[in-house]
């Protein structure tokens, strides 16, 4: 075990795989000499060489599509988008080619695209988004959102192993703020399995990414008032652990879905609708959603604070649900 930050855990996972498997290589903007905009690949080019840590031109499509071509030829590429927001430049390739190649042509595309996502530091509209839901909607893509250092390393390794295109959203806000003990050896965390971050009896919070910690702080407040909140960290968005969510919903009968992404069309809607369909008779209150409002991510601090769900917002929502 070693104490690592969330960012170090990601580096560690990537490094472990690159040492173990020659087919794994990294490609992205500024990942080589510079070590990556967030320094996830610091020292990698020195260790693995310039043809395994490739400084790409400013060409998201060429990067991601290049990964697809290389993967079809047997490599295991890991692309880094400098900010998750830039994935929109390669959206066409991902949904047109990568997502559909297995289904229609029997050709798997084992690529990983790492996506530094999320806000909270005045990044503005183009450096702060959480675009997981648009990809969740496309059959053929897998989407992963780790919240803890341990999950970050294990899920990255599993993503690299997975024969499908995996979008790996690493929340920037957690990079250096979250530290925990992480096993030093190689291990995997399965895709599609949620993790109980906190056990409780009265209300279930279903969430992922940085919001796990926001929910946790809110739950602590409610605990003082005798309300016991269970927090389920989904960890994987596609495929999501429906069974765990329904079990928890049946246990507590009250559910709050929380995500940092915009509310309308956010993945929380899918979760809420499924609970409504499949656990209707177990509900003791409406399924609540707390999410960012429907606007681009604003820049100025008071605006951003009003945009990203805060601990007080979540606590208030939980209280309302508890009192229903």
């Amino acid at each position: 075990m070693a104490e690592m930050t969330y960012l170090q855990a990601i580096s560690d996972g990537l490094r472990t795989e690159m040492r173990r498997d020659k087919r794994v290589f990294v490609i992205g903007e500024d990942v080589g000499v510079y070590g990556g905009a967030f320094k996830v690949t610091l020292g990698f080019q020195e260790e693995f060489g310039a043809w395994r840590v490739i400084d790409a031109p400013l060409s998201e499509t060429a990067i991601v599509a290049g990964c697809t071509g290389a993967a079809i030829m047997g490599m295991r590429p890991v692309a880094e988008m400098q900010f998750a927001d830039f994935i929109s430049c390669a959206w066409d390739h991902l949904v047109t080619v990568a997502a559909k190649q297995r289904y229609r042509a029997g050709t798997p595309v084992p690529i990983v695209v790492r996506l530094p996502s999320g806000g909270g530091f005045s990044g503005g509209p183009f450096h702060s988004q959480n675009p997981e839901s648009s990809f969740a909607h496309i059959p053929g893509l897998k989407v992963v959102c780790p919240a803890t250092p341990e999950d970050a390393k294990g899920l990255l390794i599993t993503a690299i192993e997975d024969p499908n295109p995996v979008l790996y959203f690493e929340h920037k806000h957690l990079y250096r703020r979250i530290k925990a003990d992480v096993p030093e050896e190689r291990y995997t965390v399965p895709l599609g399995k949620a993790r109980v971050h906190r056990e409780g009896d009265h209300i279930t919070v279903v969430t992922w990414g940085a919001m796990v910690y926001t929910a946790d702080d809110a739950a602590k407040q409610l605990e003082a008032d005798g309300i016991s909140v269970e927090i389920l960290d989904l960890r994987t968005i596609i495929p999501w652990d429906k069974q765990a969510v329904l079990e928890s919903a049946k246990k507590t009968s009250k559910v709050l879905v929380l995500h940092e992404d915009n509310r309308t069309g956010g993945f929380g809607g899918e979760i809420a609708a499924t609970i409504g369909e499949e656990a209707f008779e177990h509900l003791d209150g409406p399924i609540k959603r707390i999410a960012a409002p429907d606007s681009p991510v604003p820049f100025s601090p008071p605006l951003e604070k009003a945009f990203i769900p805060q601990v007080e917002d979540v606590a208030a929502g939980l209280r309302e649900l508890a009192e229903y």
Partner: protein
Amino acid sequence: MATTEAVDVVMPQMGVSVSEGTITKWLKQEGETIEADESLLEISTDKVDTEVPSPASGVVTQILVQEGETVEVGTKLAVIGGEAGAPVPEPEAAPEPATAEAAAEAEAASSAESPAPQPAPAPEPAPTPAPAAQPSNGGQDGKSFVSPVVARIAAEHGVDVSSVPGTGRGGRVTKKDILDFVESGAQAAPAEAPAQAPAPEPAPAPAPEPAPAEVPAAATPKPAAPPPAPEPAMAGAGERLEPMNAMRRGIAEHMRRSLDTAAHVTSAIEVDMSRVVAIREKLKPEFQKQYGVNPTYLIFVARAVVETLKRYPWINGEIRGEQIVTRPYVNLGFAVELTDGKGLIVPVVKNAEGLNLLGMAQAVTGIAERARNKKLTPDEVQGGTFTITNPGGYGTFHGTPIISQPQAAILGTYALVKRPWVVQDSFGKDVIAIRPIMNITLTYDHRLVDGALAGRFLKDLKEALETWDEVSY
């Protein structure tokens, strides 16, 4: 090589968005021969004008669409080969939608003839002793909204939600509230698995005729307050207090109301059950082995009751306002005691008139099991038209049950006791025999049912049991 089988020529789809085409010119006429891939006709579409090559060699046996006509993509235009002039099979006439509707109409017609107003059992206006929670037309006051999980728990436990105190918003009953009540109150599985399914139970409290009643043998010394607002009662020295749970309060309310509503009269008759005993001996092994059900005496009685009720609709009826309600079906309720005497529930076998002895045995066994496992649906505890209760499990030979509102009567069965009985020998002379005798009571609402009617009913019932017709029963 000409085709002998008929080959269709269809309007092609010339482009993804094209949905129809027009025949501009037939290049061959009926009766002419054509080679495969040779152009047969010219068409025009939104996108392009083109020729259509023949799919086969042979004789153009039929041309189905004429020049100038516009048809949808996929429409058959012509036939190559096959029998000249063979009628093209018509697309099958759409199956008569009437069948299902006709059946429904017939049903509606027949039920229209019966005096009953509608086929569905009328929802009971008042809660039965163990009613299911009614989902409310939400939003009026917090108290009336029942959430899905609360509704489900209420149904499973036979709890009347309106008598559960609510701590939720607006006084709503929350999941915790109802679980707490179920915990403290009407718990656990009703009934031991008796030879007589459903468990024996002293039905409603031993309230005698309208004469001043003795103090009901309730454990609680204080008078029961009306359910909604219990007044804090004081215990005297040496006395113990315990709260009435929801079910108990429900029962108390119902019993009082029933006595206040109906004019209760009970008539009794003694039935020689020898024939039933003999038949039961014979059928019991078969029923148990093949069907897993035990044909108890209660089931025999129930079968005979349902058969007899067909001739006594008022006894299966109801007073509603100024009208008398009768119906062609019997929804037969069976009083089931919950364990520890904490209350009772009355599951209902719907349409019992359609069941023979085996069917009755299966239905009753099933409903008793569901009552035990708290798996009764709300539908199974409502809509009864007649009730049977069986206090005889404890050996009592007579009783005066209270009618389950809004029904008109309730039948009580009692212990089967071997008695010395006067019978005729083969010479017609009186002799004493030992016979298994069961006392059966009918408690009826004298507003609707007179003594004579009740007497005739019991007489017919007795006859049915004593001359049990194996074939038609």
